[in-house]
């Protein structure tokens, strides 16, 4: 068990290293550098100011040296300052993390809460209209672009029915109810794809498990059909589902960006989009690293949940 965690942490470090290299050097394969970005279109014409800025920013030092300076900073919690706003990156990221996490978590909860019952009911009623309806829902969820669904939800529930506020963000600790009301539509939009994937996974896993001998054996004990399906069928079907959910975390984080833009949520995704438009390289680097970290963390958590669910798994 301990061996497993040591190995997992080492792999994670390697991945983080690779991501850090890519995110650092990607800035240099793009046309224009930080100095041009800061000076803007007209300022770039002044060679003197340009040279001065390059010197100031340390852009004249060799790349490798600059990479290690940057990594050294990151390791001590110093991500540098944003080229756009000039504020320290660390606190800015932290502030932006909250809304994104709230959005991602609410989307996860929605997706799981809808998908598991739908998947189970579809599998139990396989090859009936119930199953077809479930598959349709799943495919629709996967096929519809999240941002489009977000806009439609906004039109319908906010603009026409006026049930929900159209957009914005309130921290959950300031006004929990309003915070959740604001987040419902973007979370549902973000959940749709994940929901589709989970429905299909639950249905497939469940169909598989329901043909197992231990299901017939469980039935032969005289427990109710409901117990057979939930206690034995679903519990065994959840194993592959947990893996899928873990793997989808990256997609969810990426999908969050578009919805943060549509719903004016000041989250990481929006920050990433803004930073890319502004060529705020220091910020982009930090965001990439943070995304990689979150994805790695979620896969780590997935493995631990999996191990808890499946007694046959002993990591060593």
């Amino acid at each position, binding site marked *: 068990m301990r061996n497993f965690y040591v190995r997992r942490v080492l792999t994670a470090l390697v991945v983080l290293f690779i991501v850090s290299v890519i995110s650092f050097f990607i800035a240099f394969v793009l046309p224009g550098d930080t100095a041009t970005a800061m000076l803007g279109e007209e300022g770039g014409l002044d060679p003197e100011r340009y040279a001065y800025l390059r010197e100031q920013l340390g852009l004249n030092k060799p790349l490798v040296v600059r990479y290690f300076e940057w990594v050294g900073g990151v390791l001590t919690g110093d991500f540098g300052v944003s080229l756009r706003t000039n504020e320290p990156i660390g606190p800015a990221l932290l502030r932006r993390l909250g809304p994104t996490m709230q959005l991602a978590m609410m989307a996860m909860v929605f997706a799981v809460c809808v998908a598991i019952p739908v998947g189970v009911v579809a599998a139990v009623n396989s090859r009936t209209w119930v199953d077809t309806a479930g598959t349709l829902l799943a495919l629709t969820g996967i096929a519809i672009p999240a941002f489009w669904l977000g806009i439609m939800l906004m039109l319908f529930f906010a603009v026409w029915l006026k049930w929900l506020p159209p957009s914005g963000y309130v921290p959950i600790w300031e006004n929990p109810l309003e915070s959740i009301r604001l987040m419902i539509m973007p979370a549902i939009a973000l959940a749709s794809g994940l929901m589709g994937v989970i429905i299909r996974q639950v249905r497939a896993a469940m169909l598989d498990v329901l043909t197992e001998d231990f299901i017939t054996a469980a039935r*032969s004990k005289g*427990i109710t059909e409901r117990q057979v399906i939930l206690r034995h069928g679903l519990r065994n079907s959840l194993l592959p589902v947990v893996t899928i959910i873990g793997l989808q975390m990256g997609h969810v984080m990426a999908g969050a960006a578009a919805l943060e833009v549509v719903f004016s949520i000041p989250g990481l995704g929006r920050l990433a989009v803004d930073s890319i438009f502004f060529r705020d390289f220091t910020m982009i680097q930090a965001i990439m690293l943070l995304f990689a970290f979150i994805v790695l963390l979620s896969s780590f958590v997935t493995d631990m949940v999996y191990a808890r669910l499946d007694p046959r798994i002993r990591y060593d």
Partner: protein
Amino acid sequence: MTVSGPARSPDRPLLHLDDLHTSFAQGAIVAVEGIDLRVGAGESVGLVGESGCGKSAAAKSILRLHDPRNTRIGPGRILFEGRDLLQLSDEGMRKIRGREIAMIFQDPMTALDPVMTVGDQIAECLDAHERLSATARKARILELMKLVGIPSPATRMRCYPHQFSGGMRQRIMIAIALSCRPKLILADEITTALDVTLQAQVLELIRSLRDSMQLATIMITHDLGVVAGMTDRVYVMYAGQIVETAATDDLFARPAMPYTWGLLRSAPDLEAPVVERMVPIEGMPPSLADPPSGCRFAPRCPYGREICERAAPPLAPNPVSGPEHAARCWGTQQVKGGGWLIGHDWRAPNSDTPTSGKAGTNA
């Protein structure tokens, strides 16, 4: 019911399959075709036949364990203590399962839920039928595990199936089956997945539990050797039908028809050192979707005559033994064109192939 089975039956058998039919795929596959089988209280009965003959289909029909969407059970009756189980509601059937009739499955590796502790899996059956306090419940689990010979049950009850060997898992399956003290146990190939030593141990366990708890059992197997010291009576099944039935001693002493002879020759651990050991029956059982029109065994039978392919024989008393011994074979029946196997010693070389050029299998 036109063709009656053996006349011997307890006044009211515990279980009576009365002309039972089970079919799959909208009747396209008739896996059980008109079976008549009786089990008295405390009696042990064998159901023997090659793989694919419909033994499991019959056993699962009793507990209604088939997928109802593609299975039809009936016509026929499944009388348990005089009640027709086919008339019960799903809830009524649930109350029979585990408490009145329990089943033990072939493969202990796949019949236990891998993500539930064995203690919980034993308790599940108890909880389904009885209201027990937590302490009484635990005591019962420990008692059951001890009964089937699992060492240090208090720690083992918290283990998962993968932490047990195949033989131990089969013991747990037995403990589950026994948990609510059922009157009848359906043991479906319970030793097939085990090696020979474990087979003997598990059979011995079943035998002693059966005697001490007055359990009736149906031992389902493809191996006549398993049935030998374990059962009072035997039903031999072929292609969805009962083809021979007799008291176990009688069946071994005077097997009537060629399919049973084939099973005897293919049984691995028969005591008598007869001919060559383990000669499998040539060919395969017929597809149950399209069985032969005459005697179902005729295409594989080295003793067949013209009548065999023309007409299907009834299950009729064997003239050599008493009326309790019946066989579905023209060779044993005194009708026009039949009866040529009456008194034939199955161990003797097959000199009797006048119509077909088939060689004897016991050369």
